[in-house]
């Protein structure tokens, strides 16, 4: 790294996220990439409900705060009426994979030309750590106190795999933010997704594996190890769809 300066797109104050929360790292990465692309004044952040809504006080650029799970629907409207804008939805796993499942799948299937940043921390962080669709098998939450049992609650939902089966999306990728390499890859992935959007290539989806020290009841450093041994083996990082490469 030659040089690093904190982006002016995020407030000059600590974020509202808990100490060690990789959500704030995800937000910072997005702001860094937008600034690098020179799109600071042209970007629009569609903020959903959940911990991602803490961005309302933290995000310095234009944003839209929308109903639970409906960020892709709102982003569709904004992008269609302002095609020159860099539009992205910033959603968590409870928002995107549970209540907003219809919106995300429909927007992806239509190949809408915006980006979705999906922060997956395998729990409902904001409401107190309930089970999310992405909660791992055996993971304890306040609604699965003996650990998630697939017999009654099903299996963790793999959104990248689901969306990559659709015809329309241009870029679908997953990255883990628990190591410097993962963060660098994620930054490159977010940049690629935004560039594809600016070229009008269609729907781009970037999943970022994050943690929740508060609701996993761990220290921030313990969550990084937990992600290595539990999260990453199930939610495998990688590029799931890239129409540019597939064509070549």
């Amino acid at each position, binding site marked *: *790294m030659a040089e690093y300066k904190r982006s002016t797109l995020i407030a000059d104050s600590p974020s509202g996220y808990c100490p*060690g929360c990789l959500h704030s790292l995800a937000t*910072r990465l997005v702001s860094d990439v937008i600034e690098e692309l020179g799109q600071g004044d042209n970007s629009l952040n569609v903020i959903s409900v959940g911990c991602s809504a803490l961005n309302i006080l933290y995000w310095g650029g234009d944003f839209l705060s929308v109903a639970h799970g409906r960020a892709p629907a709102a982003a569709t409207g904004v992008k269609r009426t302002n095609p020159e804008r860099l539009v992205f939805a910033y959603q968590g796993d409870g928002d995107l994979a549970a209540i907003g499942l219809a919106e995300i799948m429909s927007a992806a299937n239509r190949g809408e030309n915006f980006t979705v940043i999906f922060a997956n921390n395998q729990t409902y962080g904001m409401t107190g750590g309930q089970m999310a669709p992405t909660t791992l098998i055996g993971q304890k939450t306040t609604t699965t106190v003996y650990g998630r049992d697939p017999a009654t609650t099903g299996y963790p939902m793999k959104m990248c795999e689901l969306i990559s089966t659709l015809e329309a999306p241009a870029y679908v990728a997953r990255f883990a933010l628990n190591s410097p390499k993962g963060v660098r890859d994620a930054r490159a992935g977010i940049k690629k997704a935004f560039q594809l959007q600016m070229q009008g290539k269609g729907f781009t989806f970037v999943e970022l594996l994050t943690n929740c020290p508060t609701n996993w009841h761990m220290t921030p*450093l313990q969550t990084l190890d937990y992600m290595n041994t539990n999260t990453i083996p199930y939610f495998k990082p990688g590029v799931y769809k890239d129409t540019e490469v597939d064509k070549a």
Partner: protein
Amino acid sequence: MIQINERLCKDCKYCVKFCPKQILETGTKRNARGHFYPVVTDPEKCISCGICATMCPEGAIELPAKGADA
């Protein structure tokens, strides 16, 4: 050499864990929010790799351009 903005630090210790030269450690002073922020124990050994800045969730660590901090 890195610059730490202690005002933004939340004491997650990611920078301390990932520093390849092991020259960051949690200090003994707290910031206004009550978090112990990191200090550089041996500035001479810093190779300006920026891994601490990469991992800091809050962007509290900045890496000035070469020569700017001389």
